[in-house]
């Protein structure tokens, strides 16, 4: 199943909201000092739409879970296909541009 859609309510089964709430956020919460989360972009997914990336990554900042700088420091993004550099840049851009705690999170599940 490819990552797609912004919210659970988009019926994609692999939305940005789901990725953030069920995978990225728990991993961040369990992160020990000095550890990083390795995000491998090209180990199966065909691509990542902006809706997925903004909600999945920038949502961490937007809903006030973590500030942008420490989030960027906690992530190590990897890929072997050079086309996926496009998505790495987007992830970093969206995180950097997100306003900390600018929105209250309400699950769409």
């Amino acid at each position, binding site marked *: 199943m490819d*990552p*797609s859609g*912004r919210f659970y309510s*988009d019926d994609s089964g692999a939305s940005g909201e789901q990725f953030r709430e069920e995978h990225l956020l728990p991993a961040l919460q369990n992160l020990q000092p000095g550890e990083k989360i390795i995000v491998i972009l090209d180990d199966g997914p*065909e691509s990542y*739409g902006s*809706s*997925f990336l*903004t909600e999945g990554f920038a949502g961490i900042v937007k809903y006030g879970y973590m500030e942008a700088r420490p989030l960027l420091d906690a992530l190590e993004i990897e890929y072997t296909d050079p086309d996926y550099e*496009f998505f790495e840049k987007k992830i970093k851009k969206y995180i950097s541009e997100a306003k900390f705690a600018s929105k209250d999170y309400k699950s769409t599940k």
Partner: protein
Amino acid sequence: MKIYSRKQRERIVRWNIAHRKGLIHRKRTGSRSSTPSPAAASALHNWLTERTESGEINATINSKGFVTITLPRVMNFSDQYESTAVQINAIRKLAPRNRLFPNSLSLGLVNFDQLEAISTSAALVLTAELSKWDDHKRHRLLPRVDNWNPDIFSRFYQLGFFELFRKTAAVEKMALGVGGVGEVRLVQYIKEKTGAASKTRLLKEAITDIIGDNISKWPILNSGLSEAITNVSQHAYPESQGFSQDHKHWYLSGGYNPITKELKFVFYDQGIGIPNSLPSSEIWEKVVDFLSFVPAMERKHDELLLKAAVEIERTSTEESDRGKGLQDLLEFINERGQGYLSILSQHGLYKYSVKNGSSRVKSERFIYPIEGTLIIWKVTLIE
């Protein structure tokens, strides 16, 4: 004040005349009513009669009110836009789920016999409309292909058009002649409901088979397709306007011309269209702001709304419920460094093209709408 080119002025005059005559009817809000209505049936009859008399549609009506539409010789959304869109509009109007009123006009046959050329995008939209009609008829439609042009048959056969129907002997006989060197090769269309973004892999595999190589920058195109599919879930079929889960279809196909090396991808949904979905979106205020320099009369023009929606996302750093989705559509063309993206929705066109390193945006307004959103990417493979 704004200075219009002669072509723009002629288009505005054509539009205004059509509007005054009541040839253009638009409904932006309110629910989709399926209540039988003699007034709606009469309006449909008038609509068809006017277009038949003007020669825009070749239609005949039998004694039971069943209409035969004979398609024109050429259908495409580039230089034959209006004459193509009006056929699609007629099919949509004449093939509702339920007849508007007992004995009101209803689609009986779409005759392809005179059709000699059709673009990939027009073929996909036509297939989508006939698929919708077939859904309404509980899959009882049968194709009559005896007098079809062999090239047209070949094109629709590759597209998967005949998968909609029970196979007839005539179809199987003509299928033996499908193929040939130098033709545009089409990918069997994909019809899905919301979500199902992984189905784009089927398109990738089919196109890769045709061109015999990987599609450079495919992940970037796929992210645009993913956003188009997300748009179908979020905006295209609002329940507040009477749409249910059953309506939320999207269609996807592609084609490759080995002579010109042109590669085309086409995505289509039959929803309310991007211009109509903007007023209820988070970016509406920005759209209004963006269009504040435009004369008030023109602010609801679909081509300007489309342009505003794309341009706002290009320049905005804030999040919106649309994400950066429309922007994602452009990225494949940017990354490839040549080609174009066309978004046709309702009466508007937004075309973004890149050539020799520079980009160009074109907007256009049409008399007849695309009832939904049609997105076309076209690039040329460079050896």
